[in-house]
């Protein structure tokens, strides 16, 4: 259990500001996701917490004590790498024992810990194998075991699911969450996959251009994005963003409702959409269209995506026009100049 805090953390590489002032405080035992595209600074942030990079300025504290300047081996941080970084010349058991051997833990205790960790991650039958003979999922478990065996204060995960095949990713995600609930270790989970972040984390910090754009629970981020970047980054398909002159209106695909299904009050925007094509995804349909009415003439032909959570095909065909509405409760407004969220709509309709 530990509380991780960063204060005004900065990292420059020459003129490039990889991390440009980050203040985060984690909860005790929380799984905090650091979500951002490549180049956002999330990897640099993670490496500074692990001790692999020194900050240019700012501070990092664990339970109130600064750890800046302390080499990785003296920090109680364990890391799981994207490529797992298992030692190829050692078998699984030796890999897991390695952190204990390096820290000169007595033999008896080593054995206990290895047994404990092997039990939790169910890798008992892999102990004598070499890493080259493990599947992706197995390697991940061994990497987790090696990190866990030290009983660290802080876990750092570097995109741990990205090397796995798509099919096992959901299952692996679930197992990671279970592991976290069991061990209650404060975890920093770095990823570019917003689905992973939303599904796994207690809270998500969205990072872009070296700064935190917004931090909050997955639901908060999804329902109340604080700026355009967060709005467009979270959600798949992303939030529809309609340019209306000096304001941008955002609405999630599932919030594009057929006019025929909705009552007239509470409507923020009434759009005439020309359907371009429909996509069947098993549990839902995606509707791709272009706006041909309901907003100023100059802004038409913007593209939107709607989502219908049903298996039966929606009552429309490509080429047809339909009226879709966005309710007030679901509309989000953003200032065009700053990208920040606005609360009052001054929307020009046509």
């Amino acid at each position, binding site marked *: 259990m530990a509380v991780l805090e960063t204060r005004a953390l900065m990292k420059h590489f020459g003129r490039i500001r990889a991390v440009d002032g980050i203040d985060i405080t984690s909860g005790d035992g929380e799984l905090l996701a650091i979500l951002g595209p490549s180049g956002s600074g999330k990897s640099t942030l993670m490496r500074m917490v692990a001790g692999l990079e020194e900050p240019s300025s700012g501070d990092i504290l664990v339970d109130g004590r600064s750890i800046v300047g302390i080499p990785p081996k*003296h920090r109680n941080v364990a890391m799981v790498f994207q490529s797992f970084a298992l030692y190829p010349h050692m078998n699984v058991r030796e890999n897991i024992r390695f*952190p204990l051997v390096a820290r000169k833990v007595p033999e008896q205790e080593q054995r206990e810990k290895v047994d404990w960790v092997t039990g939790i991650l169910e890798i008992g039958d892999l102990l004598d194998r070499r890493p080259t003979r493990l599947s992706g999922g197995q390697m991940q478990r061994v990497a987790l075991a090696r990190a866990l065996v030290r009983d660290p204060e802080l876990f750092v995960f570097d995109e741990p699911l990205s090397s796995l095949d798509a099919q096992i990713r959901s299952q692996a995600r679930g197992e990671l969450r279970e592991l976290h609930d*069991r061990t209650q270790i404060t975890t920093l989970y770095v990823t570019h996959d917003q689905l992973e972040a939303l599904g796994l984390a207690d809270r998500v910090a969205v990072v872009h251009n070296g700064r935190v754009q917004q931090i909050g629970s997955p639901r908060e981020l999804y329902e109340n994005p604080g700026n355009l970047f967060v709005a467009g980054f979270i959600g798949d398909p992303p939030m529809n963003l309609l340019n209306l002159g000096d304001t941008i209106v955002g609405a999630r695909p599932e919030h594009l409702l057929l006019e025929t299904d909705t009552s007239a009050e509470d409507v923020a925007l009434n759009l005439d959409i020309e359907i371009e094509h429909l996509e069947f995804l098993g549990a839902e349909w995606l509707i791709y269209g272009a706006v041909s009415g309901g907003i100023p003439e100059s802004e038409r032909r913007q593209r939107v995506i709607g989502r219908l959570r049903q298996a039966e095909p929606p009552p429309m065909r490509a080429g047809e026009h339909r009226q879709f509405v966005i309710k007030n409760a679901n509309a989000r407004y953003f200032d065009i100049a700053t990208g920040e969220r606005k609360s009052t709509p001054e929307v020009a309709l046509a």
Partner: protein
Amino acid sequence: MNAPSTSTRQGAAVPEGLRGRIGDALERPGVLGTVMLAPAILYIVAFVAVPFCIAIALSFSNATVGDPTIDSFVGLENFRAVLQQEAFVTALRNSVIVTIATVVGIVVLATIAVELLARDFRGKRLVQVLFMMPWAMPVALSAITWLWLLDSQFSPIDWLLLKVGVLGPGGPLGPAQHMYYLGREWLGLGSVVFLDIWRTLPLATIIVLAGRLSIPRERLEQAQIDGASFMRILFRIIVPALAPVLIVAILFTALLVIGEMSSVALLTRGGPGHSGQILPYWAYLKGIESGDLAQGAAISLFLFPVLAAAAIVALRFASRLHRD
């Protein structure tokens, strides 16, 4: 569920004292890097850089074996004396010819050898063993082997040529019964080149083969599917991909060959007269056997700018290829 009682939970603990401070200093990559690099650098400085400076100083002095102190500065006297000698032009010319010929020969043969050894075939092990032998011999011994093979009286090559009718009365290379490989100017140089190629080929082949095996299979298969002939694949795909590696091999080989004097020393002794002389051997003769250390150093120094220019060109070329 909690872990068993633990001695690893230390928090951010830092050891105290001098030992701790040294340990922490060594944690910093710059410090540890310097410490690990230092022995090699010190050694090279002591045994290469310092002697190099002494050699330069020697070339500006009048040191001899009898009086080896560097006490007087004679300016460019030694260099002038060297340039005025007829042997210099010959030696320089020969050094250049021998190097270029050797390098060309090695590149051509290595490329062929690499194409053969890049494939699997029966008996490859045996071929590898036999192929490596020329390089497994110390240089002096391989020179002696060829000395015997090219002997003016008992060369088996001559014997074969005679039997076949190429030598001897009526033969195209006759009417003499022997070729005197080592006693004639151009044949002598050719023998030196041949020896250098013969013994350096295995090393050059290994260097180039490593590069050749790194060419992704798909690239070659694609060319085959596209219908390219073997020659076209060789010249359009393999050689360009090998270019940086070839440059390493060439550079290394050239540096080895230029500096190596044992082939000439043992095969032709620079003869006949001075016609087969090369710079390093001439430097040795002047410096040690004639006793004029200063001139010997001056002669060797003439090699240096040539080598430096060639190396810089090669390095520039190689790094440009690397960037692509």
